[in-house]
Each structure stands twice: as structure tokens, then as C-alpha cells.
């Protein structure tokens, strides 16, 4: 980390700059997966408590984003994709971003503890710590396995949502965690394949930088194959069902096909079409995760209307 506490002369940060610090796009994924974790749980939650809990989970997720932007301002300033963020662009000082992130973290964790329960609050605190300290401050600049281990931070929200409703941890919430955890590496590596120049310039040891694109292509295929049984296993728990199973099989077939296409290509082919396949697989990976969690929500709604799939096996 370098000194990024300099603010553009004469510029006053506005409300939107602070909203940007919360990484709203990442926040939307956090909100969605946490909401699914909460709604598929076998215990119903008071709507006010549920709404407030999701809001505090979102604020906690946003706070870790602000801490990430404070610490990574030097990297963000170099990368084209991130150089217009409020801290590297000089609209918010690094110090203000840090204070903002820390205060929001404290408020989010305390309020979630008071609103829901202390297990959910503890999980949220651990998620913020894991993302801001373990991933951002340590792993990201230290190892090409950064996003493999760091992916855990993004995988916690459905587990927190589940803990809000049940006050505990179940095999279902562990599998939802595992689904996001296993999905993260192929998702980010497909992004890294076509954003490699940015990471090289910033000196971030992504797998594409340290081991090259060929090795990254191999890793994407292997991790996608490992993801398939985890995703399908959810179908045979209390939150799964035939709808989830059919959707999961289709989405996994799409993602596997994409990973295979990436694996098959060499650099000349990729350069020739400006990484069109890699970009497509990155998009598919987004639909993949959204599709899985959306269909879990549909399964829960169907069960709420009395559709119980009596003959469907629950092996896990």
C-alpha cells in the first residue's frame, strides 16, 4: 500500500462517491445470495427483522469493499478497470475511506447481532475480516492462490442469511457456501485471461501473471469440473428438488462447455478474436451463480405453496 491520502484540490466528495466505495455491484450479489440463504431456511423470519438483517449484511459487505478500496488504492490507480474509483481518482482521501469502512463494519455487525443473533453477527464480522485483512492485505499481493482462498469471503453471505433465520449452520448452508467458493476461481480466472495486462501492470500475482495463461486455462477446466458435484449435491438436500436439479444440470453443462472451450484454445486464437470466448464464459459464470440461487428461491416458494416433491430423494 502507498500513500493515497491525497485528495484532489478543491473537490468535495459527494454522496455518490461514498456509495461507490461500497462496491454496489458486489453488494447486489451479497444481498441476493444472503436473501436466498434466509428465505430457503426452514424457519420463517419476521419481515422487518429479515429486511433489516439483509440491510446490515449488505452494509457489512459494502464496508469491506470500502476497506479494500482504501488499502488497494495504489493498485487501483494503475489498473484501467479501477482507476476511476473514488480514492485513486482523488475524490475521497484514503483516510476517509478507511474510517468510513471501519465505522460501517462496526455498525453492521453490532446491529445484525441485536436484530438477528450473535452467530450471524459473528459470521459477518469474520467475513469482513477475511475480505479486508486475509484477502486484501495479505493474499492478494502474496500468492496466485489469492482468489481461491479469498473466495471464501464472497461465499459467506448465504450462510449468514441462513444463520439469521435458524440461529445455526446446516449442511444446506455449508453447500451454498461451497457452491460460491468453488465457483469463484473459474469466474475470476476467466476475467483475468482478458484483463491480464492490468494485473501485470499493477504487479498483482494472479495465476495468469505468475504461471501464464496456459496454466490458467488448465486450472479453469479442473476447478469447473470440481464445481459440478458440489452444485448438483444441493439438489439432494432439504432446499433442493427436481427444478433445481434440472436447472443445475443445464447450467453446469453450459459452464463446462465454456471451460472446455477456454482450455482448448491457444493464445493466437484468443488474440485473434480479442478473447471473445473468455469474455463469454465470464458472462456465463455470472448467469450460472444467479441461476442456481434463483432456482433455490423458486423451490422454496413452490414448497411454500405446498408443492413438496414427496418422491424426490433427500440424500444429504
Amino acid at each position, binding site marked *: 500500500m502507498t500513500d493515497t491520502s491525497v485528495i484532489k484540490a478543491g473537490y*468535495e466528495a459527494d*454522496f455518490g462517491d461514498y456509495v461507490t466505495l461500497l462496491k454496489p455491484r458486489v453488494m447486489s450479489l451479497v444481498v441476493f445470495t444472503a436473501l436466498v440463504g434466509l428465505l430457503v431456511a426452514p424457519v420463517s423470519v*419476521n419481515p*422487518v*427483522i429479515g429486511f433489516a438483517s439483509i440491510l446490515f449484511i449488505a452494509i457489512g459487505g459494502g464496508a469491506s469493499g470500502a476497506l479494500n478500496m482504501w488499502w488497494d488504492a495504489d493498485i487501483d490507480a494503475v489498473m484501467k478497470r479501477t482507476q476511476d474509483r473514488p480514492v485513486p481518482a482523488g475524490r475521497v482521501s484514503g483516510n476517509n475511506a478507511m474510517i468510513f469502512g471501519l465505522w460501517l463494519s462496526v455498525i453492521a455487525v453490532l*446491529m445484525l447481532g*441485536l436484530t438477528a443473533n450473535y452467530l450471524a453477527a459473528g459470521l459477518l464480522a469474520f467475513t469482513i475480516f477475511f475480505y479486508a485483512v486475509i484477502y486484501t492485505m495479505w493474499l492478494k499481493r502474496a500468492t496466485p492462490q489469492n482468489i481461491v482462498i479469498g473466495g471464501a469471503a464472497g461465499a459467506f453471505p448465504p450462510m449468514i442469511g441462513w444463520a439469521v433465520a435458524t440461529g445455526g449452520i446446516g449442511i444446506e448452508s455449508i453447500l451454498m457456501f461451497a457452491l460460491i467458493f468453488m465457483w469463484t476461481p473459474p469466474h475470476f480466472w476467466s476475467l483475468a485471461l482478458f484483463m491480464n495486462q492490468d494485473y501485470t501492470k499493477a504487479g498483482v500475482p494472479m495465476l495468469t501473471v505468475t504461471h501464464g495463461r496456459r496454466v490458467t486455462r488448465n486450472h479453469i477446466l479442473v476447478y469447473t469440473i470440481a464445481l459440478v458435484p458440489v452444485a448438483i449435491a444441493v439438489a439432494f438436500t432439504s432446499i433442493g428438488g427436481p427444478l433445481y436439479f434440472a436447472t443445475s444440470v443445464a447450467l453446469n453443462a453450459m459452464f463446462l462447455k465454456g471451460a472446455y472451450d477456454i482450455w482448448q484454445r491457444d493464445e493466437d486464437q484468443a488474440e485473434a478474436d480479442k478473447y471473445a470466448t473468455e469474455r463469454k464464459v465470464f458472462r456465463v459464470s455470472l448467469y450460472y451463480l444467479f441461476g442456481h440461487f434463483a432456482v433455490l428461491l423458486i423451490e422454496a416458494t413452490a414448497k411454500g405453496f405446498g408443492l413438496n416433491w414427496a418422491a424426490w430423494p433427500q440424500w444429504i
Partner: protein
Amino acid sequence: MSGADNNASGRRKSSNILIGLVLFGFVSLVFAITIAKMASGPADVANSQRVNTAQGEAQ
């Protein structure tokens, strides 16, 4: 007052209004949570007492 000062003052005013709305929303939310907790708390106790009584009668 110059145009730039007017612009800065306008931006600050709208930021203050937004912060005010956020604070008002936060206070309202805490109030709503308190009401929800007060409403569900005794009902939960009553439910568990009802279950215990039913179990006792069954034995």
C-alpha cells in the same frame, strides 16, 4: 457569490439532505426492529409455553 460557490453550496445542500434521509431511515428502522422484537418476543414465549403444556398433558 460566484457560480462555482453556488454550485458547491448546492452540492453540499443535496448531500446534507441525503445524509438526513439516511439517518431518518436508520432511526425508523431501529424503531421498527424494536416493535417487531417486542411483538414477536412474548408470542414466542407463549408458543413455547403452549407446546410445553401440550407435551405435559400428553405424558
